[in-house]
């Protein structure tokens, strides 16, 4: 395997394919006409909670949420 095969510019800058693909999708969604745009923006919403574990116990979680807190 050639280790210096031509890599896409985004990978050379340290970005993964998923990041690249999501950025492209977000840019396209922002360029839509109105009724489609609001539907599309709901698709971008993300909600997750990540906690690192130490000594068998979860540490404080990082919560990323675009949905309003109920």
């Amino acid at each position, binding site marked *: 395997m050639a280790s210096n095969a031509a890599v*896409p510019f985004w990978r050379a800058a340290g970005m993964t394919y998923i990041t690249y693909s999501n950025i492209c999708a977000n840019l396209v969604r922002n*360029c839509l006409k109105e009724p489609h745009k609001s539907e599309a923006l709901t698709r971008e919403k993300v909600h997750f909670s990540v906690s690192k574990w130490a000594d068998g116990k979860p540490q404080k979680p990082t919560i990323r949420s675009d949905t309003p807190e109920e």
Partner: protein
Amino acid sequence: MFRHLTTRILSRPTTVTAARARPFSTDVAAAPAADEAFAEAWKKVIPNIDPPKTPLHFMTPRPSTPSSIPTKLTVNFVLPYASELSAKEVDMVIIPATTGQMGVLPGHVATIAELKPGVMSVHEGNDVTKYFVSSGFAFIHANSYADVIAVEAVPIDQIDPSQVQKGLADFTQKLSSASTDLEKAEAQIGVDVHSALNSALTG
């Protein structure tokens, strides 16, 4: 004692198949539905118990490549939230691969193509349906099935030209003023996507 026997039986069929040189995937015949060599070897040693089912038994066999080229291409176009086209028979699709616009006809060689932001057109008789695809992959199989997967795909008439122009101007400006590699990459992606959107609207 019997444990050794079973490991020997299990290892024998795999060494036999590995020794045969693997032909091109375009020449592979439809895979067998059950592992006959294993079942026969089992029966010779343990005639009373049925041979266990191997993983091959549970898999659906690879669909055989028809010997004559089919007249239509079957397209599956899926997005994470919807299935745009599901087993639709068409004459041709043109996909925006990173290597350029690629036309796929029935009988196309099996290919995996990464897609760049661009227009995908589906040709059926005299109708052409165009979608702007943000990025994704296209898998073309030897039996004239094409699976196109994309994160976002919109019909061209849902794109707003004023926002495309604005975005293009913004990102061209960001590209010239970007400092870190990551910023440059993001601005470059912005420029690429907006120019593709622009040419989709005008082309």
